[in-house]
């Protein structure tokens, strides 16, 4: 299969403007006759659904949540990037574009990323107009902060709740269109299959999660904005319900899964505390501005700490290994996420982990407290302040900056991070991989589009902080409303297909069959227990570092686990009721297939880049070794029960030079 990226001709900076001015349009009277299905109400889905409705399309929108406002986007903390250059610090569309390409370790499509940087500025304007209460300076203008991997200050934020505020903005726009009758909203409806009619995406099958009704819905096209698949690892920072089912059903109907092995592991999360652990909590990247990462130098200290005989505070300065500062003197604690995560793993693999499980390192604010304390004392004109006074003043400064995060840490761990160093460990956070799309955000299935974290388009092998929110809203507010016309302009003579067509009946039957299979199995193990085991396999063999032998073993184990699942899973109750176990069974079944494709992708990519680290491909100092001559491509996977197949889209770099990232 040849993959066409459909990137328009012309110079990089003019492509999008040129393309928009020549694109096919759908006249207002025709828009009223056309209907669009949007699955998902996160930033990408809510922004797309509301904007398409504003334009005049009839939108049907679906979420498995009980309200559109609860999508996982709500949990984003840190901020959203935009090339506004309000700080006058040298930012520009080109710089945002370049940082994103470089941060992604040169594995994303130039034209898509440039467009993202271009529309980033409109997003901020739109959100302000909706009433998003961004942080402001004393002069009343918008405030910015910095995030990892860049040298400018371009991140807009609303304290530690940026995702919440942006989503509420998009949700309100969506609710407005619902009230105007332009969006028909289906809450607690889960898409369980995609329906193709004559090769085009024309509908979906859903299950009403309250009463189990299986429903058919048709439209002129289908837009998926269903989020990422990090929960394939069981433990991740994603919300409990985040899943791959919608995207996976599309793959089963012919769409392709691109770069599925590109997973972002975030370095600063609260470590696992026990077997019952259900999810992991992120501690924002911003903490690495002031926190220093370390482990003890001596194994006897490690032992004493694990036995509870010592704490981090008892280890003298000379016996601490600030390993990021030691290994990466130029960037220190602010190396990118992938580098910081791997270094923590190395320290723990060597036996220096500082909690009972051996899987934690310290993130220590004591130096920052002293440093800030001294500055404060100085500005207050205190001469010879006592150490206690310095600490007291410094603690106040740290509290003002990170108070809500410290509070969250204390709630979860029961330890006071102002007094004892935080314990952190990397955790699965985001998936760069996703459904393959072209420049129009259309998949290889005509009429099927994918937006937000569910597509693969913009972040290459590693995403920079604060860029997922930007991409979700760019796709929904400013890209899809234009590019969808390229497809829909060819559909104005077609009616919405009837749901009585055989394709709908067949898809519905498949959904029912699978549900019946789960319910009648009456096996001996819960869905959760299978999910947990799958997560362990993925983390062990396809996690922070991978090698051919382990990947092959992992693949075998997943296949066996899948067989066992279909023999021995226990799902209680019936279809015709609110049945969370049944919902989970549907999702885990798809994760069990996706996991295998992720492993195959990791095997295929015999190089290390971004979040993908193959142990066989590293420099003598243990850094990632990219192999541009062979692997500058997008790997797009076609599902097959026996042997999934890879299709390749070559990545052509016309504007940036491929370089090795160095943080030393």
């Amino acid at each position: 299969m040849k993959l066409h990226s459909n990137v328009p001709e012309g110079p990089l900076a003019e492509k999008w403007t040129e393309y928009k001015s020549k694109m096919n349009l759908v006249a207002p009277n025709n828009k009223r006759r056309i209907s669009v299905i949007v699955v998902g109400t996160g930033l990408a889905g809510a922004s797309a659904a509301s904007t398409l409705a504003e334009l005049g399309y009839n939108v049907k929108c679906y979420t498995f949540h009980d309200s559109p406002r609860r999508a996982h986007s709500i949990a984003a903390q840190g901020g959203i990037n935009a090339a506004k250059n309000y700080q006058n610090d040298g930012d520009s569309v080109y710089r945002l574009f370049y940082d994103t390409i470089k941060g992604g370790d040169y594995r994303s499509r130039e034209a898509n990323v440039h467009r993202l940087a271009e529309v980033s500025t409109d997003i901020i304007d739109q959100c302000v107009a909706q009433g998003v209460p961004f942080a402001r300076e004393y002069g009343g203008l918008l405030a910015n902060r910095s995030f990892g991997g860049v040298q400018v200050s371009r991140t807009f934020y609303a304290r530690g709740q940026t995702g919440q505020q942006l989503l509420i903005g998009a949700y309100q726009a969506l609710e407005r269109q619902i009230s105007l009758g332009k969006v028909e909203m289906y809450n607690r409806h889960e898409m369980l299959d995609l329906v193709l009619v004559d090769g085009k995406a024309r509908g979906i099958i859903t299950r009403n999660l309250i009463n189990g009704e299986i429903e058919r819905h048709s439209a002129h096209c289908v837009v998926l904005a269903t989020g990422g698949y990090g929960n394939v690892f069981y433990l991740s920072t994603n919300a409990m319900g985040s899943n791959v089912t919608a995207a996976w059903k599309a793959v089963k109907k012919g769409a392709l899964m691109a770069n599925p092995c590109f997973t972002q592991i975030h370095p600063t999360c609260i470590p696992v505390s026990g077997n019952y652990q259900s999810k992991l909590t992120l501690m924002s990247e911003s903490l690495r501005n002031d926190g220093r990462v370390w482990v003890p130098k001596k194994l006897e200290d490690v032992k004493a700490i694990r036995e509870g005989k010592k704490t981090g505070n008892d280890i003298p300065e000379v016996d601490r290994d600030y390993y990021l500062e030691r290994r990466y003197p130029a960037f220190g604690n602010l190396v990118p996420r992938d580098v910081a995560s791997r270094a923590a793993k190395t320290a723990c693999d060597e036996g220096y982990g500082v909690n009972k499980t051996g899987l934690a390192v310290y993130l220590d604010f004591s130096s920052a407290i002293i440093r800030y304390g001294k500055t404060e004392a100085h500005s207050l004109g205190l001469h010879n302040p006592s150490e206690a006074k310095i600490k007291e003043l410094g603690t106040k400064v740290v509290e003002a900056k990170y108070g809500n995060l410290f509070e969250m840490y204390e709630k979860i761990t029961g330890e006071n991070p102002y007094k004892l160093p935080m314990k952190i460990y990397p955790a699965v956070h985001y998936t760069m991989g996703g459904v393959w799309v072209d420049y129009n955000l259309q998949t290889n299935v005509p009429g099927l589009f994918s937006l937000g974290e569910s597509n693969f388009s913009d972040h290459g092998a590693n995403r920079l902080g604060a860029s997922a929110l930007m991409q979700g809203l760019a796709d929904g507010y400013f890209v899809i409303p234009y590019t969808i016309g390229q497809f829909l302009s060819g559909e104005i003579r077609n009616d919405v297909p009837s749901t009585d067509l055989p394709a709908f009946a067949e898809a519905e039957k498949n959904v029912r069959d699978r549900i019946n299979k789960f319910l009648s199995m009456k096996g001996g193990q819960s869905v959760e227990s299978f999910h947990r085991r799958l997560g362990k396999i993925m983390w062990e063999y396809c996690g922070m570092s991978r090698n051919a032998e382990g990947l092959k073993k992992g693949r075998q184990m997943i296949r066996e686990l899948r067989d066992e699942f279909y023999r021995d899973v226990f799902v209680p109750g019936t279809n015709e009721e609110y049945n969370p176990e049944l919902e989970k069974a549907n999702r885990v079944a798809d994760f069990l297939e996706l996991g295998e494709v992720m492993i195959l992708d990791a095997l295929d990519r015999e190089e290390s880049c971004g979040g993908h680290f193959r142990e066989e491909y590293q420099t003598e100092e243990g850094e990632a070794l990219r192999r541009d001559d062979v692997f500058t491509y997008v790997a797009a996977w076609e599902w097959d029960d026996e042997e999934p197949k890879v299709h390749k889209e070559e990545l052509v770099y016309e504007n940036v030079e491929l370089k090795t990232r160095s943080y030393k």
Partner: protein
Amino acid sequence: MKLKLKIWKQKNQTAEGKFHDYNVEADEHMSFLEMLDVLNEGLLENQQEPVAFDHDCREGICGTCSLVINGRPHGPMQGTTACQLHMRHFKDGDTITIEPWRANAFPIVKDLVTDRSAFDRIIQSGGFVSVNTGQAMDGNAIPIEKDVAGEAFEAATCIGCGACVAACPNGSAMLFTSAKINHLDLLPQGKVESSKRVVKMVEKMDEEGFGNCSNVGACHVECPKEIKLENIARMNRKYFAAKLSAK
């Protein structure tokens, strides 16, 4: 720690519900919802029906979790959602009662799960700024005083959980509705539609079957985001002013 749980079980909206007793062995580091996971895991092992409860982010931000624990929405800790509550705040041998939100406007779906779509309908009635995508001027065109933006933000941190309604003896949604109204009303972008919005949203709230406010203040006490009571007073002033000027 060994715990006794008294949990409300109800098959669906119309069925009768009643309390069931369960025993569970928990660990002080677990979150409250992880304790329920452990309970459910045990029930499933014995091929019994698990307890249905709503949850998603488990970080206190999505507003999905909704348990009345020992008579208090979201449990005993101030400013904390049920998902962020940890078992170290309970003692070995404790008996814990767990119920769903109870309010006319929030029918029970199953066990501890309720239908809170009435909140969405309140937002539909006017909880937005009528601006289409692409119409916006530059984000810095209108400066907004830092403190005012901060106040709007405080109101906007409401997670739409409904604990305020569950806490109120009248089942009033005043705290939720006023938080939304004030978030938008405090900002110049939202001011334009101010009078229309407050009238529509207040009327919608009544229509959905939420009760009146009799100044009990329980909503604020149980609100996991500590949304201020002043929001209600401010909304009421706005509402009467809008009604007066409409006459």
